[in-house]
């Protein structure tokens, strides 16, 4: 489904080169619940940003369903992100001036669906994440766990082919973290949703089918855990 070839990313701090990724080649399969793990600075977030078309690689290619997305221009990448990808960030990244329902409707509206369609789809997905009673609340009126569930609903409303989660539990306590991960597990199992998630928590491993360990910008280990998954 996604294949990266010799992917590298180098940042520049003045004249100093900081290689964040160095020749990463690997593949993500449809229906994977893949964990990207590794110590701080290992390049896991950088890899997620490149896979999620939020940043451009310095060298290498990314092919999604056979299409080389690294060749896309900015507008094409924006459109691709909207229609094919979902994102969950560690600080929820909701729009503070929009209600729960409006936050979820946003990406559906951007696809040109009618307001009724957007509302229906958003209410449906919010009910799946257990927030039917909170539709008219603003993000600041919700707990961290609830906000992350709104973010999950927003990322899912357009039925993306792949969901990217960048340390989604970093700001949550264990109970809320578990609720979020359970949610991921459910959508992965029931809808076959492909999920790529960055994490540094050891106990999250139990949810992943597969874990790619990164170290110093390179793949250190690729572990298939399907037999151990929750």
């Amino acid at each position: 489904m996604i294949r990266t070839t010799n992917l590298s990313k180098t940042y520049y701090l003045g004249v100093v080169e900081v290689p964040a990724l160095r020749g990463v080649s690997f593949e993500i399969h449809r229906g994977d619940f893949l964990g990207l793990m590794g110590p701080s600075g290992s390049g896991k977030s950088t890899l997620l940003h490149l896979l999620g078309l939020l940043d451009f690689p310095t060298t290498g290619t990314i092919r999604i369903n056979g299409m080389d997305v690294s060749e896309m221009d900015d507008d094409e990448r924006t459109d691709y992100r909207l229609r094919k990808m979902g994102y969950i960030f560690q600080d929820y990244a909701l729009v503070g001036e929009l209600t729960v329902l409006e936050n979820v409707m946003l990406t559906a509206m951007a696809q040109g669906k009618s307001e009724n369609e957007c509302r229906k789809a958003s209410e449906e997905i919010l009910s799946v994440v257990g927030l039917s009673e909170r539709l008219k609340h603003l993000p600041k009126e919700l707990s961290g766990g609830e906000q992350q569930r709104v973010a999950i609903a927003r990322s899912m409303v357009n039925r993306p082919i792949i969901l990217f989660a960048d340390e989604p539990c970093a700001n949550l306590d264990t109970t809320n973290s578990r609720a979020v991960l359970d949610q991921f597990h459910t959508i992965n199992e029931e809808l076959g949703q492909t999920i790529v998630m960055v994490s540094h928590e050891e106990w999250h491993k139990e949810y992943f089918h597969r874990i790619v360990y990164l170290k110093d910008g390179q793949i250190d280990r690729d572990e298939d855990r399907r037999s151990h998954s929750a």
Partner: protein
Amino acid sequence: MNETLIRLRLSFFLGLRSLRRGNIGSLVMTVVIIGMVFTNMIFLPSVITGAINLFVEQTIEYSSGNVLIEPKEDAEVIEDLEDLLARVNRVPGVLRAAPHNNIGGVMKFKGSRLAGSVIAIRPRDEVLVTGVSKMIREGQYLGEGDTGVIIIGNYVAGHKDKSEDLMPSLGGVRTGDSIDVEFTNGVTRTYRVKGIFETKSYMADQAVFITWDELESIKRQKVDQATEVLIKTVPGEDDEEVKLSLIGMGIQEKIKTWNDLLGKAFAQVVQSYGVINSISTIVSIVIAIVVIFIVIMIKTLNNRRQIGILKAIGIHRTTITFSYVFQVIILALMGIVFGLLILLAMDRYFTVYPIVFPDGDIRPAFTIADIVTNAVLLFIASAIAGFIPAWMIAREDILTAMRG
């Protein structure tokens, strides 16, 4: 739905909610500033238009009528006056014609001497053509057939303390006083001042009127001549059309509308006012642009992270930019409505308490053209001022923006 429409719909959705749920203090401040700028843009031209209107009104009402007939080229007077008046009064669109016969003279009062024109009028016609009869400050207007009496303008009457006078005067004449007039034909008459008028028009308030009967008594003959004939047109008639009808009747004298009379000098005055007005408008627009630019710049910088998030989840940068443009347009609209309310209040106030100038009371004239033009200018300026900072932030790369 077309891609552009989808983006505009989403921009409007985001912009409207950002305004509704954003910082109310910043919203009110921006609306008030835009409202004040709009008021400033309209107020100066309205005063200038008011001054021009006043000048035109005074010219028509007290000096020339709507149309003025003057002697032929190389002639000093209009001959066969009665015949001319009869013809003019028959022309469609003419309400009434009033002849003036202007004779030079020197007025004397308690040692003060003042040279000027003494104008003979026919009061019955004059009241239908000019507005002097309505502007009697003290005493009475002339009656048909009055002799031995005179009415004088406010500036001619003057004050006992001449330092209070704007123009040379007779030094404080009051109704009932007697003044001597030495006419250029050598005749000297003493007149009782029957009334003093005050029109606030420089030209009109320097005039002195006697009746036609008095003129004939001075000249000791029937006078069938005039130095000018003022014509009042029927309200709503086009003065230019009336002028053409008069020419069409074969009248050989010079026929001019008030507009012809004011001519190039007046056009220059209007042009000069236009320059002042343009400078004021440009300054107002620059203030509006700077204020809106700062407000939107601060807002976009504060929302930088949110803009990054929106881009990350696939919202196009055009949608984000236009969400700010929509906010600015709504703010401009609210500001303009606020400005219009201020102008409405000013209009009411100045109707009751006009701005007092020595040459008249000016009521600012708020024209639809000025309001529409300035509103459009303000909209365009606001849209540009909102677009630039939003465009700058929206084209930043996603991860930089998301770091805030």
